[in-house]
């Protein structure tokens, strides 16, 4: 029980830290969103004088609460967060940030989530196999993983698009589904699902190619180490079938650290998927993040950052729980 309490306390503190960081950053910035918005409007209307009412309206909607103390602002910020209010986007004015994120998140979970699971499984299974067949030609595959890990995500993605989508025309170029066939957006149909899969294929492939090396290498190394542990040697001495030794004894124990390293790998995947989504115009959370950074839409930037952080924390928390179940030792040692 102590293990879980400690972990929960840790996550609570981490959430607090992330939210506070999010609160602090924009307040260290010069200028305020309302002024940026007014400047934009003025330019967009070709230098036409803005009526005082327009300016007043914008300050009412976006203006910083300059008369309250930072502490009150901080409390108010928490209050708004707990009500699910992340403010209004300035690049997508007057859309609420929550709505933008709500539309983008499912796509990221679908594409990045699937890619991560595929990459994880292929990496673990492949790593176990390469580790099991240690000392054979398969060892030469190991350095190849180094190459996979070193290719910049976006560069790989651009090359894949240029070859498979533009030159060969096999796969779609942009988006999450075919907007020509489905002009009114997502629908629950088989055709739509196929279209979504087609569109997710290349971005997911990019993520799998770039991230599989890490899983494979980690698993292979653990497998090699585990194979020389006493309990495996004992199992061999007992004359157990090799496949049983491989699957039940070695691989199972070797996979545990891979699960523990999930958080680090997940961060890698999140980073890569942001860039990948940009190349493929994939309407997920990563692209939203990039747009907010490029448009200096601080409310959107904060909101997306918070959601990414919370999602990663949730994934880690689930992994922690799972880890505690698989490996009872951590529950007692912490």
């Amino acid at each position: 029980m102590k293990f879980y309490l400690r972990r929960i306390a840790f996550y609570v503190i981490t959430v607090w830290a992330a939210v506070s960081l999010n609160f602090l950053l924009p307040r260290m910035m010069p200028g305020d969103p309302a002024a940026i918005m007014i400047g934009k409007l003025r330019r967009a209307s070709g230098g036409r004088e803005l009526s005082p009412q327009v300016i007043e309206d914008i300050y009412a909607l976006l203006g910083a609460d300059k008369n309250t103390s930072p502490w009150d602002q901080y409390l108010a910020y928490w209050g708004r967060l707990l009500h699910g209010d992340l403010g209004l986007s300035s690049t997508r004015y007057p859309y609420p940030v929550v709505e933008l994120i709500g539309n983008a998140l499912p796509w990221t979970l679908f594409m990045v989530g699937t890619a991560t699971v595929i990459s994880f499984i292929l990496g673990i299974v492949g790593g176990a196999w390469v580790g099991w067949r240690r000392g054979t030609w398969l060892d030469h595959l190991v350095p190849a993983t180094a190459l996979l890990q070193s290719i910049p995500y976006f560069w790989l993605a651009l090359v894949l698009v240029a070859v498979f989508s533009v030159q060969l025309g096999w796969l779609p170029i942009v988006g999450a589904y075919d907007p020509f066939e489905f002009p009114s957006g997502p629908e629950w149909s088989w055709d739509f699902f196929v279209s979504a899969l087609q569109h997710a294929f290349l971005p997911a492939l990019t993520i799998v190619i770039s991230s599989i090396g890490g899983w494979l290498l980690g698993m292979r190394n653990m497998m090699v180490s585990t194979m020389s542990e006493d309990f495996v040697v004992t199992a061999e001495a007992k004359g157990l079938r090799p496949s049983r030794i491989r699957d039940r004894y070695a691989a199972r124990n070797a996979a545990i650290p891979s699960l523990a390293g999930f958080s680090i790998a997940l961060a890698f995947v999140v980073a890569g998927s942001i860039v990948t989504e940009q190349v493929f115009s994939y309407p997920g959370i990563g692209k939203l993040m990039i747009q907010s950074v490029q448009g200096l839409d601080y409310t959107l930037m904060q909101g997306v950052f918070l959601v990414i952080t919370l999602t990663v924390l949730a994934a880690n928390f689930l992994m922690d729980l799972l880890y505690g179940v698989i490996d009872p030792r951590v529950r007692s040692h912490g």
Partner: protein
Amino acid sequence: MADRFAGIRYLMPRWSAKLGAGLVIVGLITLFGIVAPFFTADPRDSSNKGLLPPSPEHLLGTTKLGYDVLAQLATGTRGSLYVGLLGGLSAMLLAIVFGILAGYFGGWLDEVLMLATNIMLVIPGLPLVMVIAAYVQNTEGLGDFARSSTLVALILGVTGWAGSAVVLRAQARSLRTREYVAAARVAGERGLRIIFVEIIPNLVPLIAAQLIFGVMAAVLGEAGLSYLGLGPTNSITLGTMLNDAQTGQAVGSHAWWWFIPPGAMIALLGTGLALVNFAIDEIVNPKLRLAPQAARQQRRATKAGKGVAGGGAYA
């Protein structure tokens, strides 16, 4: 006397094909980055025609503005190595501070430092870097520093140390219980002195591995930031080259000579560094080297008919 070197030799990586290949790759690229800029043309000389394909005058062609790609590649490699080293070193220093102090002293210091480390570890890196870069780079009063490669490297370092700290902490914790450390403590040595004299020298391979990881991460991180338009703007790196190629529609113009070399250079550098890391891994964890060797010997022996585990041939 010989004994003194035995320890060092133990810490040196065993020679292997992987290590050799890695060192050669990294060495050649470093040499290219250091020496080549002196021999190539001015990377910002626009007097050539734009988008020339490779030719004897321009071995890797020219960019849209007429810059020589080879010259850009040489200067860009130098720039990326600088970002990589600075980013990697700052990450390593932070990892040593957080990881080793936490691991050695334990107790509440460990709790606090590890909490900070774990927070850094789970808060996703690139979004954090993007947010920080967007804020920092728009802060007034930084002048040229705001978009310099030094600042980008520091941001990458400050956000990229947590993984290494966890690894170092675990190792420092186990070293702490070794007899010679206990002896030093009993002899009244101060904590920091023990760390510097007893602990850190024993962690050199591990620290080196983490440094190499850090360098790789910083080079790749810089490329990613540049692609997103948050990279350094006033110096040439491989990332800014890729960004120029991307915004200059190199792919659409089929100017592969502009687009492929910087990406390939990053991939190659990363591969070289990773190969060196494999060799270091094999020192840190000798099983990685010995087990495949043993398996290989065993198999060879089996083939030669002297197998011991040949499915009960002797039974």
